């Protein structure tokens, strides 16, 4: 995907790295999300902050 600002030759390396991370990271995410789907995660507790400071 083209960058908004020119990044020069390093931009090509970044683009390739981002693509690779997209594939590898996507796989890691997919496995983690399957683990989450098989478990019951609690929701965050309410936080009380004084209404008037």
């Amino acid at each position, binding site marked *: 995907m083209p960058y908004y600002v020119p990044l020069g030759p390093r931009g090509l390396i970044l683009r390739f790295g981002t693509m690779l991370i997209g594939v590898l*990271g996507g796989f890691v995410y997919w496995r983690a999300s399957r683990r989450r789907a098989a478990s019951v995660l609690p929701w965050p507790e309410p936080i009380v902050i004084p209404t008037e400071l």
Partner: protein
Amino acid sequence: MKIVAAAIQMSSELHRVADNLQRADQLLKRARDAGAEIAVLPEMFNTGYGKSDYALFGEQAEGPTLTHLRQRSRQWGMGIAAGFVEREGHHLYDALAFVTPEGGVHVYRKRNLVFWERSRFRPGRQPLVVPTRWGRIGLAVCADMIYRRVWADYRDRIDLAIVAAAWPDFADRHTGRKHWLLGHVGPLSAEIPGLVAKDLGVPVVFANQCGETRTTVPLLGSQIPDRFSGRSSVCDGRHGPPVCAGTGEEIVLTPITVHPQRGLKSCRTTSLSVPAA
């Protein structure tokens, strides 16, 4: 229409949601007292930003963070944008919420995940334009703003752009030495909002984190004892130069000129939009 916008630059501690929310609350109050109608908090301001597991910190619109911000928005008559981790089912998103004084909550999901983010979050698929009393607001998160496609999607469809970020310097905070590959990316956080403001002809409010962090460069395995680059800014479209923060905790507060267009050119929303209660 002239309104006052605030970019709140703050540091957040990892996983200390209550402390971070309380700190943000104080900064929001300062912005409100100074007349801000719109305030922007950084990406993941409540959970802190770092390579970590966010499964237990993911929230929905009814979660503690957005419940509190919605209450403040209504109480103070202020639009508030804030980065948080959204959880929907077993999926997590690096998200940016915009809450309105009318009680609406609109959530944008970061589309361009970088580095470790891709293994922790699911990427969003669509841009988000929020119709508000101030005009149409387009949302983006951190690395989103480096991609041409993101701004092409918003061109002529928004009256104001909001970007929340946790953008690092990509340089050793002790020596100042820039990383050989990414060192030139750090300073872009200070440049791109101004370029977008001129290019699209709309104000851009950019809120970044500040403080220390550690950047892991994936695939290369190198670690940078880094810091977030700060330099949050409010850019008044083509009306003047950007007003920028330094690298510490700070609020950038300045009037911006919004030209709301008649009618709403629709843009599909990314995720939930909770109507006013």
